[in-house]
């Protein structure tokens, strides 16, 4: 059993009013220099067969028409780590 995270965000180029709202709010609190804010969601799941994850993402977890997803694969130890730059990304 592996703990896996799937990060889902609005596809680039699609208007993201939630991200824009956050981006506009940050300078009002004194946090300058913040751009490209996007708000997505995180799905955490324990899976027995990791090979099924891409199909799970395509079929249910994300809508590939409007969302990109990133699977954060577990390390060999089973400990969940943040994915590096080489992590699969679509």
């Amino acid at each position, binding site marked *: 059993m592996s703990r896996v995270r799937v990060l889902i965000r609005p596809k680039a180029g*699609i*208007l993201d*009013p*939630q991200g824009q*709202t956050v981006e506009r709010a940050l300078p009002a609190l004194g946090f300058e220099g913040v751009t490209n804010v996007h708000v997505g969601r995180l799905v955490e799941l324990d899976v027995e067969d990791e090979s099924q994850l891409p199909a799970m993402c395509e079929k*249910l977890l994300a*809508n590939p*028409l*409007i969302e990109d997803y990133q699977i954060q694969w577990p390390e060999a130890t089973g400990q969940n780590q943040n994915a590096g730059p080489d992590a699969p990304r679509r």
Partner: protein
Amino acid sequence: MPRGGNRGVKFGVVRFPGTCDEVDAYLAASRVGDAEILWHADADLKGVDAVIVPGGFSYGDHLRVGAVARFAPVMAEVETFAADGGLVLGICNGFQVLCEAGLLPGALLPNTSLKFTCRQVDLEVVNASTSWTNVTAVGDVLSIPAKHTTGRYYAPDATLDELEANGQVVLKYAPGHNFNGSVRDIAGVSNAAGNVVGLMPHPEHAVDPLTGSADGLKLFASAAAVPA
């Protein structure tokens, strides 16, 4: 519940957990034909001539609107029914479900305002030859209510060009009425064959002048006018 007389066409209205507009859809359909409620967990369309996937919050809209309902047992039957030319109408959450199911192109995103909005909107008929708009004329304006948080129609530009070229854009928000930010003012689309139509506003809430407009009844009357 009151029933219409047997006037030929039998509508089936799908009920998912969280659906809330099935009774209005049932009553609207009953004005032009017979109607029956279809249970989401039953892989059975009960021999209906037309299926309505109504508004509401199927399965709580968890994960993403319409994402879970799309895999309900009844939806596998609806997909086969639609592929065989059966009449299917998706309203609001039902439209979202049909898009998720791939029965209709595109997807629905949160309104640009990020707010739930409930208002009467004017819709222009762009294609009056679909199974659900054939008693209207191109350019007709239908006044019906819309109420949703996630109703911003989106499809990639190439898809939109194709939809417009094929006449699959069925209804557009009239100037000044596109409150949710839908691309190209699109309020409703059809599949290539025109037997499956989806829209965000609610025709089932506009079937009697007593409540402000009976324009929505035209969609149900259109389906009833299609020879079975």
